């Protein structure tokens, strides 16, 4: 327990977790559409503002868990309500809280039926997402991790597109199937650790190698499906395409990050030996994901599908960065998580705005809107540039760091990843060209109106972050640096210890 900084004052984290839940409960009793919209916007905005206090109060010089709150929950099984954040989770929490008000704004006109239940789902999502990133007790983590499936399922199944039933069930079954063995692994770890579900207690223990491999595989299945990594990605395009805009944004910006967060938080510290043993396979799977996502995105005519497959590629970069196991790679990976959240979230918002006007996601229907929607294409252009890592935008920094880390690790691996970056430029520019100029057979777009004030407000903050992280990433890296360095130090120490033991034997 010496790695916790207990928060004696106002329980800020609990406030952030439970405020949206309380808001959702109140919304259950209303059926007024406009009240539901304003209420959800208020609640998410308060949460976003409250979360800024986390950054201002965050101590970047320590790798300990901060803002920790601890209460007894189920004493029979030694399960506690422990939450806290460190450099790995703080950025993801900020991403979640800041993106949520814009999800509400994006749904302002898009959702016309059953508005109050929709906002209830969004608020419950926010509660469980923030909770997942803060949880320091494995049962608490698992409860929130699974619970999130219900509102997300509802978001897709009720407010989704034409094939919503197929997509929502596939999403639910796929993710649930992945986390089943995670539960068994958690119980096994609990028994190995003298009946403790406290996550930091499970880290850096000397489990046997077989045990580590089994636990790693159980973790890997759950997290790889969530990321999604290459062979497990098939639920993602379906879910993205059918989900309403806000659902797509949440899915892309936050939900996918839970998988990579899981790798960093659990796989590396709990099963270090297995991580070293399995890293090559994971790395090549990441490369496969990058290339596969790129090529498939190149062939899409559906804008949402295109961005969904580009997500597979971008998340491939994240796993690549994590498993090269050096500071550049891991820091780049965390930054890439944030950047992907910002950029892809914004791209989905853009597609949603077109969809609201043309009621189609087809690239050919949206061709040549540049003439009639200049504001819109300006935003779209910047986000697209960011998506393929154009220098000066946010993704450039993170992809550069990841590739630098990869070069250090293995030059062939890095060379294999390079085409991914080129492919990204190819498919994003293709989409951009079509949407702005199109060709000779553009449909009549003269009925289109440019972005409204609300829509500009929704997109502007994303653009700010694109350039902020792109031009001055140091504050973001500072937030995570100590924790990442500590994580990797311990990881390599544990490896050295293993080697030392082998030598002694």
């Amino acid at each position, binding site marked *: 327990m010496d790695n916790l900084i207990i928060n004696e004052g106002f329980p800020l984290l609990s406030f952030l977790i439970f405020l949206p839940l309380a808001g959702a409960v109140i919304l259950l009793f209303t059926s007024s559409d406009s009240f539901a919209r304003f209420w959800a916007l208020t609640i998410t905005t308060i949460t976003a503002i409250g979360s800024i206090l986390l950054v201002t109060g965050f101590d970047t010089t320590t790798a300990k868990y901060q803002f920790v709150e601890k209460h*007894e*929950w*189920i*004493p*029979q*099984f030694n399960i506690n309500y422990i939450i806290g954040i460190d450099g790995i989770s703080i950025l993801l929490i900020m991403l979640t809280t800041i993106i949520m008000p814009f999800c509400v704004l994006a749904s302002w006109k898009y959702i016309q039926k059953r508005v109050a239940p929709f906002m209830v789902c969004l608020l419950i999502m926010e509660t469980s997402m923030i909770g997942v990133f803060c949880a320091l007790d494995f*049962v608490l983590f*698992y*409860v*929130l991790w*699974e*619970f999130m*499936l*219900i509102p997300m*399922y*509802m978001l897709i*199944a*009720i407010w989704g597109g034409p094939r*919503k*039933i197929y997509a*929502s*069930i596939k999403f*639910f*079954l796929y993710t*649930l*199937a992945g986390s*089943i*063995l995670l*539960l*068994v692994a958690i*119980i*096994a770890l*609990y*028994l190995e650790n003298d009946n403790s579900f406290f996550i930091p207690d499970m880290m850096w223990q000397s489990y046997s190698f077989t045990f580590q491999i089994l636990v790693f595989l159980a973790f890997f299945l759950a997290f790889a499906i969530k990321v999604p990594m290459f062979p497990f990605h098939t639920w993602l395009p379906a879910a993205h395409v059918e989900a309403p805009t806000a659902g797509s944004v949440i899915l892309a910006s936050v939900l996918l990050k839970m998988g990579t967060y899981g790798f960093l938080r659990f796989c590396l510290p709990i099963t270090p030996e297995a991580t070293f043993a399995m890293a090559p396979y994971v790395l090549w799977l990441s490369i496969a994901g990058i290339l596969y996502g790129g090529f498939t995105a190149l062939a899409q005519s559906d804008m949402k599908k295109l961005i969904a497959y580009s997500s597979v590629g971008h998340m491939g970069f994240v796993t690549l960065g994590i498993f090269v196991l050096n500071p550049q790679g891991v820091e780049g990976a965390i930054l890439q998580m944030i950047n992907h959240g910002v950029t892809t979230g914004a791209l989905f918002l853009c597609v949603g705005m077109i969809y609201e006007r043309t009621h189609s996601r087809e690239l050919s229907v949206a061709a040549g809107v540049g003439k009639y929607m200049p504001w819109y294409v300006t935003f779209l252009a910047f986000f697209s540039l960011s998506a393929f890592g154009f220098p000066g935008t946010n993704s450039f920094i993170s992809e550069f760091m990841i590739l630098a880390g990869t070069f250090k690790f293995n030059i062939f691996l890095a060379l294999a990843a390079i085409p991914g970056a080129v492919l990204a430029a190819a498919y994003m520019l293709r989409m951009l060209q079509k949407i702005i100029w199109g060709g000779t057979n553009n449909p009549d777009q003269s009925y289109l109106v440019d972005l409204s004030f609300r829509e500009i407000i929704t997109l502007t903050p994303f653009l700010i972050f694109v350039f902020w992280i792109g031009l001055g990433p140091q504050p973001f890296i500072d937030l995570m640096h100590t924790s990442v360095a500590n994580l990797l130090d311990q990881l390599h120490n544990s490896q050295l210890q293993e080697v030392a033991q082998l030598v002694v034997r």
Partner: protein
Amino acid sequence: MAILPELMLLTGAAAFFVISLYKQLDFNQVKNAVVCFGVVTFIAALISLKSQATMFYGSYEVDLYSQVFKLMISFGVAIVLIFGKNLKDIEEADRPEYYIFLFLSALGLMMVVSSVELISIFVSLELSSFALYLLVPMRSDRNGLRIQMEAGIKYILFGVLATGFMLFGMSYIFGLTGTTYLQEIMVGLQTAPQPAALFAIIMVLAGFFFKLAVFPMHFWVPDIYQGASNETTGFIATVPKLAAVALLIRITSMSSGNIQFLVYLLMFLAVCSMFYGNLSALVQTDLKRMLGFSGIAHAGFILLGLLTMDASGYAIAIYYISGYVVMNLACFLVLCNVSQNGENLEIKDLQGLHKRQPILAFILAVSLFALAGIPPFVGFMGKFMLLTGALKAGPESLIYLTVVILAAINTGIAIYYYLSVVRTAYTTDPEDRPDVTVDGFTQTVGIGLVLLIIIMGALPAKFVALADTAVRTIM
């Protein structure tokens, strides 16, 4: 005073016997009387929760263990009476008789959890079973197909067969130990010749497996669930299982000597029940049949608690069954009220329920997600604790690990059919299906059940602690 709840039920049965003699009855008054009666019985059980007594020459033990179960039984009965008060599918003239047998059955179940002697266990179990056998064919004949008669006959035949197994086992126990008192049997069995003692225990268990619907004593479930009226099924699916678990725990904790075989047997039955129940439920179109098969799967989970052979495992089994009863009651509350005239519901009859009756749709969604074992509902916490307990019981054993993994995989299979019901209720349009009207009281009770599902799941510590104390009074 110690047997106040039992006396209440007996009075109720007698009172309805008198009522049934009148020719001209205002059914509304009967309805209100019966609901009051259910609530009063529950209050009586609550009052006598802490009472202790030993009666009838030591064959009837009133202790915390039995009182906790009586509380849950009376809770289940009260809820069934409330949501099934319209008895849509029972002829009006038969309704007072229906209540006589319902009360007698509940009385039998309450007596069985207090019985600590083989003969009284047998008598009270039969009291409850025979009353139930009569409830099933009381459904009005809908299409002239007499499926309720078929169900009734099947139920009684299978039931008698299971009773036969149990009696056979009891005779062995008496032969081996020379006594019918559980306390003395427990001592006697420790020195009894081994295969015979184990055989006797397993035979007795078989009788209760029938009640709980554990593989291979499950085959009555789908047809009887389908053939009985919705209210009757709501009762059969919930309350008798409580008593079955109570007795299973009593009997299992008696076993001694070579219990490893019993543990492996329980494991085998648990895994078979789960797979059989879940795989069969996948293809059902009738809602009650589906819930029946899911009940078989859940019975398998209960066995995971029993096979730990220690008090904490039993406590979790109690926690799980009480959660299961609450979830199932919520499901049947919706089912009974969506059904317009008491007909069976197909899953597709739930189409557009979110528009036809939003509150019922919400109750149904929560209870099904809970049954599927999604946190933070009670179904998840129960499963999680059962899995933890089972793995703890055999920490280094590959067999235990395999069983736990198989059980976990089953949660994944189960989610599909629960989810498809939720999907029908929430994502489709009603088309031309009529609106559903429910009275405010039933709605309130339904919301209460939902809250209970959430509270039991999110804050389980108190409930598990109570179950734990209760179990320790009999060990």
